Each structure stands twice: as structure tokens, then as C-alpha cells.
């Protein structure tokens, strides 16, 4: 494994003064940082080698952040965190659900940003299909759109619910420890506790199980954690 090698981050922002200071902050925390001032430069840097994570501004000259993120995702499933002054309620920010793992608004609070980067990096190696994941006749997950289809009806998932299901789906049929789920669902700065996971799972069952009292997909493994199963395995 490459656990000891420093994680590489590509930082793309047209504000050069921010590039300098943020790159320094990240390097101080042991990351290997490359920078690019616009989309074209970013694409040139990507030709030289893929980073572990891309930190991307949404509004940039020439190739804008959204177009760049789509272009990158079309080539490889690189995790992307968007760092933008545009608030999350903006229609443009909503388009990012599909291509970005997380969204941090500027001005960022560095410890918060770092915690989000760590959370996304924990997901490296998780492989779930980009297309929808069919778990049975009554449940299909479409985590890249933060939605699920339950008995023919589409339900929206919150970002946290989507992250939790992502962690469970990447280990389909296996038990995922509550502690792992905490680190996947919440950033370190949020000081999450096991009860966060318990309540979230209860709410998730209300959303994705046809009968929440008799779950067939989202199962509790007492004292350990949770298990996501497709209904075929459930015998």
C-alpha cells in the first residue's frame, strides 16, 4: 500500500494570492501541492500525473470550474472538492452534486477545510458504480445524484446520508463499523458521536426501506455497526 506517501492535491483558483497562502497551509500539513490558475493550466498539470484530490474554484476565466470538473470526471473518478465564494443555495452550486464530493464556501475556515479534505481522502479506494446501484426490486441507489428509488418513488438523500450509504455500498454485504461510519459521514471538526450514526440510520431506514420496522437492505449488526445488503443476499 501507499499509505505513507504524501497525498497529492491539485489546487485550481484564479486568485493567485489565495493559491500561495492555501498551498502553504496545505504543505504545512504534509500534503504535496500543485497549483493552477485556470482550467487550461489544470488540464496540463493533469497530463503530467493524477493527484489524489482536486480542490477547485467554481468561477474561473476560460474553462469554468463546473466544466472542468465534468471534464475531469469523464476521464477518471478523481475526488473533487469545490472551494467557491458562491453559496450553496446558488443554482450553479446545485449542479455540482454530480461531480463534486464536497463543497466548501469561501472564505474558508482552514481547520474545517482540512477536515473535509481528510474525510474525502478516506474514501480513496472505495469503488462504487457511477451508474445506479440496484439492490433489489424496491431499492436502487443513485449516490452521484444523491437520490434513491424506493418502490418506484425517487427520494432525495442529504449529503451525510449519501456519504454513509457510499461507505456501506463500497463494502456491500459486509459490516461497516460505527466508528468508520462516523469518520465517513462527518468531518473531524464536528465531533460526531455514535448516536449521530444511530439516528441517521433510523432516518435512512424511513427513507429507503419499504417497511422501516422490518429492514431488508440496511441491517444493524449489534455492537459493531451496519451492513448494506441487496435483497438477493438476504436469505
Amino acid at each position: 500500500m501507499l499509505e505513507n506517501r504524501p497525498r497529492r492535491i491539485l489546487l485550481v483558483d484564479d486568485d493567485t494570492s489565495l493559491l500561495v497562502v492555501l498551498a502553504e497551509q496545505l504543505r504545512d500539513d504534509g500534503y504535496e501541492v500543485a497549483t493552477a490558475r485556470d482550467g487550461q493550466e489544470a488540464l496540463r498539470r493533469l497530463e503530467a500525473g493524477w493527484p489524489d484530490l482536486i480542490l477547485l474554484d467554481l468561477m474561473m476565466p476560460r474553462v469554468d470550474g463546473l466544466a472542468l470538473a465534468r471534464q475531469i470526471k469523464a476521464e477518471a473518478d478523481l475526488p473533487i472538492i469545490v472551494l467557491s465564494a458562491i453559496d450553496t443555495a446558488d443554482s450553479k452550486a446545485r449542479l455540482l452534486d454530480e461531480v463534486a464530493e464536497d463543497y466548501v464556501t469561501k472564505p474558508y475556515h482552514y481547520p474545517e477545510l482540512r477536515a473535509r479534505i481528510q474525510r474525502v481522502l478516506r474514501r480513496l479506494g472505495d469503488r462504487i458504480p457511477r451508474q445506479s446501484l440496484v439492490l433489489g426490486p424496491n431499492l436502487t441507489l443513485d449516490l452521484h445524484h444523491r437520490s434513491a428509488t424506493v418502490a418506484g418513488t425517487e427520494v432525495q438523500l442529504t449529503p451525510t446520508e449519501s456519504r454513509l450509504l457510499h461507505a456501506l455500498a463500497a463494502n456491500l454485504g459486509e459490516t461497516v463499523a460505527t466508528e468508520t461510519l462516523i469518520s465517513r459521514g462527518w468531518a473531524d471538526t464536528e465531533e460526531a458521536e455514535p448516536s449521530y450514526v444511530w439516528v441517521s440510520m433510523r432516518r435512512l431506514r424511513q427513507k429507503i426501506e419499504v417497511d422501516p420496522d422490518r429492514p431488508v437492505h440496511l441491517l444493524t449488526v449489534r455492537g459493531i455497526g451496519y451492513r448494506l445488503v441487496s435483497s438477493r443476499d438476504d436469505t
Partner: protein
Amino acid sequence: MTTPDELPGGPDRTAGADPAAEAGRAARAAAERAEPEPRRGHGLGLSFRVLLTAGLIVAAVLPVAAFGGIVMAAHLYSDSRVMVTLLVAAIVAAAFFGLLGAAVVVAGLTAPLRRITIAVERVAAGESSPPIHLSGDDELARLAESHNRIAAEAGRRNRELGALLSAIAGYNPAQGTEALASRAGLDACAIYGLIDCRLSLVDPATVPTEETIPGDPRPVRAEVRAGGDALGVLTGHLPATRAWERADQDLLDLFASEVGVALRNAELFGQIESQNARLLELDATKDEFLRSVSHNLQTPLTSIRAYVDQLRAVSDEAASDRRLQIVAEQADRLTRLVRQLLTVTRLEAGVLRPEAEVIAVGPRVRRAWEALNVASVTFEIRDEARGWLAVADPDQLDQVLWALLDNAVKYGGRDGRVEVAIRADAARDRLHVTIADNGPGVSEADRTRLFTRFTRGGTQASGDGTGLGLYVSRQLLRAMGGDLWLEPAGDGRGAAFTLSLPGESPADEG
């Protein structure tokens, strides 16, 4: 009693089951002999009048002949008993033939009348009626002819009306007025069988009415109106051989008025389309404006904040420098105000869709307080809802907490003190967070308008603040299924605001 066979002078001696039908056939045969040439060539048919006359004659003459014959036969006998019998027989026979004749006349009279009645009823009911063929040239035959003509015209107008309705139904306002007008012109030609026809979208008064010249194609015209407005005029020519009656003009007027409605719809549709396009454009412009405001204000603030953090990280001296701390605080404050303004705009546009995330309120309040960084004010938090989690949008809840805590600091007393209490309403699955200061509280006058936009606490207004905090907070909370209210004034307490949110009770595993 005598049998019918004994009776002399009968027109047809063949025995039959139905004497009336027999008599009718005989009457028709007699009538044929009397007037062998039908005037109007419908086979061998004779006119109703001829049949009626013949029937009456037969009905009147036969009884008399029978009576006379029997009386004469009676004279051959001297026996008065036989004579009396014969006379009685003669009277009975005369009565019989009289009734027979009457039946023949009635049958002959009613049969064609019944056919006409049925046909007229069908036309009256709006059905098509095949033409009635009656022989002869009398009143009844002319009545049938007239009925046939009316039925044919009603049928034609019905077809025209059907074509008209289906043409109208096909008019789509999205096609635009010009296309509709030219289509309506073509349709009018097809529906009414006109030689030429056009719909001009001009004031009808400017189009002179053509004169009708016998032998030339006949001009027809209808004004196209919608409501009180004249939209145009429909003009065309009818083949000279065709009649044009009042009902035809009515039908053309009907078409013109329906076309008028369709044209008006197309006009309105066009206006709505262009207004919609304009609104979308404005909306996009507004979004773009907000985006650039946000970008252009927050980008420099991001740099300021990042450099302050970096400076404070590299030296202990800088870390404790009060001046750098103020720069950081003010930058944060500006950031929040920009965000609040954006939120107001989104609230007005109704585009805020909060996420329903699970959140521990206590730590969130503490972090919001730490971010305010006011060392001069005492802060106390009492969490009576251990284990409870709120369901809210994290970013939006942060905005609310910041606004409420900032208010509590701003309007608090001299030795500032802010108290926060978190309680659970288990019966209704809700969490309540009360944030109280030790200031003078809210005056009666301010209480009512506190949650409206651009309202600041009257006498205490220090001038900073947007006057949007409470308005935005209440709107955000309501969108999250919660609420915000001001608690009644209490002893030794300043203003106390309580926010409520949907809550999740402490859960055990599974």
C-alpha cells in the same frame, strides 16, 4: 245471415286475410285506372290527391251500389219477411262498405303523412334524413320536396359546422397570429366551398364591401372580432350558382368569431412568451449579479482571512496581537453579512431548499459563540436535551445562531451575559433553544414589528447590523420545519428568543 260470398258488386272477390289491405290495393288499382300517368316519375306511383279522390269515390259509391242491388233483389220476393231480411242485409252491407271505404281513405291519407312526420322529426333531432319520394305534384308531394331541400341544407350546414369546429380545434396559439390568419383563410375556402378567401388583419372599416353582381361570383364577408376589438376581416367569393342564405352568413360569422378568439389567444400567448423570456433573462441576470457580488466580495475576504491565519500561525507574537484578531473578526463579520444578504435574496426568490441533516445543537451553539469571539460577555449554556439531535440544514442553522447570538451581544446589558438553554419537547419531537441576554428587553412597540425586514431595536440601535437578522432567521427556521419567537418579558431577563426545530430522540443502537 248472408255470407260475404253472397254479396254482389264487390270490387275484388278474392278472399283475403286483411280486408282493409285488400281494399287499399283495390283502391290503388282503381286510381291507377282512373289516372294512369303519374306526373312526377317515381315509378308507378300516383299523387296523394288522386289516390285520396279515388278512395273517397270507391268508399261512397260501393255502399250505395250494394244497397241498390239488394233493394232490387228484394222486389223479386213478395214475402215481406224475406224483403225485410234483405233490407236489413242491404243496410248492413252499406254500412260495411262505408266503413271499409273510410278505412281505405284513412290508410291512404296517413301513410305518406307518417313518412313525412318521421323524416321531419329526424331532421329536428339533428339527424340526417334520406330524401322522401312521393309521387305526384300535389301539396303533400311539394311538402316532401320542401322537406328534402331543408334536410339537404341542414345536412350541408351540419357538415360545415363540423368542419368549422375541427378547424378551430386545430388552432394552436403557439403558431402566431400571421400563420393562424392564413390558415383560417384556407379553412374558410374549404369549409364553405368558396372560390377564394382571405383573412386580412386590418381594420374592417378600411376594406370596402363588394357589390353583388348577378351572374358573377357572389362576395361574402365577415368581420373578425374578439371582445369589442375588430382584429380583421374575412372576405371571399362564392360560386354564382350557390345560394347564400341568412343561415350561411350566420355560420360564417360564427367561424369569424371563433377565429377572432383564436387570434386573440395567439396574441396573448405571444405576449406571455416574450414576457417569460424576458423574466428568464432577468432571472439569469440577477443570478449572475448575485454570483459576481458574492465572488467579488468574498474572494478578497478569503485572502485577508487566510493571510491573518497564516501570520498568527507563524509567530506567537502575532497570535496574541489584538489588532490581527480585530482584522479577523471584522473580516468574518463582513463575510456573514454578505451571506445574509444573499440569503434574503434567495428567500424572496423562494429558491432555498434546506437539507435535513442530523445535528447536535449544543456543540453547534458553542462553536457559533466561539466564532463571535467576544471575551467581554459571559456565556452560559444549559443543555437539558442530552442525546437529542436536531434535524436542520447546518449552514442555515449556523446563520441563525450567529444572528441570534450577535443580537444578544449587541442588545445585552453593560456587564454582558448571554444564556442559552436547550430543551426537548419529547411529546412533539421538537427541540427548543432559548437565547437570552440581560439587556433592557424589547419594547412593546418593537415587539410587533420585530420579525419584519430592516427592523432594528429602536433606542438601542447602534447602527451596525442589517436589520435582517431576525427576519432571515425566522424564515430559515420555518423552511426547516421550525420557528422563532420572542419570549414574554421576564424578571431580570432581557430579550429571550426561542427557536424550535424538528428533533430526534436519543437513539439506541438499531
